């Protein structure tokens, strides 16, 4: 529908329809963090397994809107199997793309599919939806000491 093409890109709807890495991991060894979007009542869980400085596995539970769910799905793809340092880089780059303040110098990071979420910035109330999984991932990384 006119005006919404930037928000509801096909790749976003695809991740929404068929979310990747949904589910839970056993804790421990994994850690879990809980995220809330107070605006719409969405709740998600990010399960994170870090071993030897590498994000071995990540899974997402809970429910949410197309933006929060697709962002979570793409997030899992972007960090799974990556060294923790790379995961942090993606996290920072994504937050920057969403217009959030991030400490340090911006780095050149290829966000791949995640670039599709750029359009969310034009819909400020939805930024919280797009960043929910990421804020929760950051908590999980803290928890894992990663």
């Amino acid at each position, binding site marked *: 529908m006119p005006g919404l093409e930037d928000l509801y890109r096909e790749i976003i709807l695809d991740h929404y329809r068929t979310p990747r890495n949904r589910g839970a991991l056993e804790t421990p060894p994994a850690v879990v963090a809980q995220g809330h979007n107070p605006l719409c009542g969405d709740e998600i869980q990010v399960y994170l397994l870090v071993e030897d400085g590498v994000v071995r596995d990540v899974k997402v539970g809970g429910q949410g809107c197309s933006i929060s769910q697709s962002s979570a799905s793409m997030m899992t793809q972007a960090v799974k199997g990556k060294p923790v340092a790379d995961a942090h880089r993606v996290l920072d780059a994504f937050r920057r793309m969403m217009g959030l303040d991030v400490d340090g110098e911006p780095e050149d990071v290829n966000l791949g599919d995640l670039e599709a979420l750029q359009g969310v910035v034009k819909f400020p109330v*939805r930024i919280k939806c797009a960043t929910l999984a990421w804020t929760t991932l950051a908590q999980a990384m803290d928890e894992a000491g990663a």
Partner: protein
Amino acid sequence: MGLHAATIKGDFPILDRMIDGKRLVFLDSANSTQKPRQVIEAMAEFMRNSYAPVNRSSYRLAAESNDCYERARAVTQRFINARKPHEVIFTKNATEALNLVVQSWGRANLSSEDAVLLTHMEHHANIVPWQMLQAEKGFAIRWVPLTTDGQLDLTDLDRLLVGVKAFSFTAMSNVLGTITPVRRLTDAAHAAGAIAIVDGCQYVPHHATDVSAMGADFLAFSSHKLCGPTGIGVLWAHEALLDAMPPFLGGGNMISDVRLDGFDTAELPAKFEAGTPPIIEAVGLGAAIEYLESIGMAEIRQHEMDLTVYALNLLKDRFGDDIHIYGPDNIEVRGATLSFDFRGIHPHDVSQVLDQTNVCVRAGHHCAKPLMRILGTPATTRASFYIYNDESDADALADALDSATDIFGF
């Protein structure tokens, strides 16, 4: 003679506003209503001509301002058929009114032996204040459950009320639209020796309200949901009850004397109106009430019933099983607040698509998370209608839902 929707729409300047060349379809009045010219003008006129502090200064302008403030109280008193103007306390909003009841009446009257009865359809404003005091006092909180069609299940009411000192409930659910049997509930409370506190936020703007007929001990509501300004709410209670209660907030205006070793409280209503009150807002509230009265509360209720029937039929005919509307079907026990699930599409996405055609609805938990858990959903989409809505707004809602199907109908 029914209400003339076109004339009423014309009273609301914001409804002339175009966004992206399209008109506004405002369906979020359960959240907060738009303001008519009559209210905007009354507040502007008061600020232009009569504004001064109240209750403090002795010049003529202050007296005039005071009269305007007290006139608003008298208008409110008449509107809810209270016996005395000083039984009407102006607060910041309904939330503050309910906190006042809990912190003043509750703190003085509740101990760990006692119980308070609430319902599963309460707004957070009628839950959290009780839980805050419960953490200190340790009384029990019990809950009236719901029937499958979203009414109060009163099967066990008498048993639930045993040992209860306060029964606090909404007269109309802000999520389900359910109108509760207020008189039956206040009678049951009194028979069990409990006081009855009525959250009138969603009821008072849409129905003729008579506190005596309700049998209430307390009634709370907000100005901004009945075409008045934000920043002011109302707590009504019987004089004897208010007299017996300790003050809530302390400061100026609520005292008759202050010494180094203590203070004496002022008479009602000042006792519960600490600090500079919302004077301009009170004038706006008075104007809003007079505006609603000029339309007629019975006419308003009738208009909303007609519109609700129209909208319910339209949505069910057009979308069948693709839409699930919460709350009762019986129009006698429901107001014009329609919460629904549409094809499992997340309410945030539904409201985003609706916003493209300026259909303003609320998506979320509606400050009733316990209820949402019971309904088994984190969020619903809610369309709520008021005096300035007509069938064309319901049509616009249905058309906009078609667009949501286009994007998310997979």
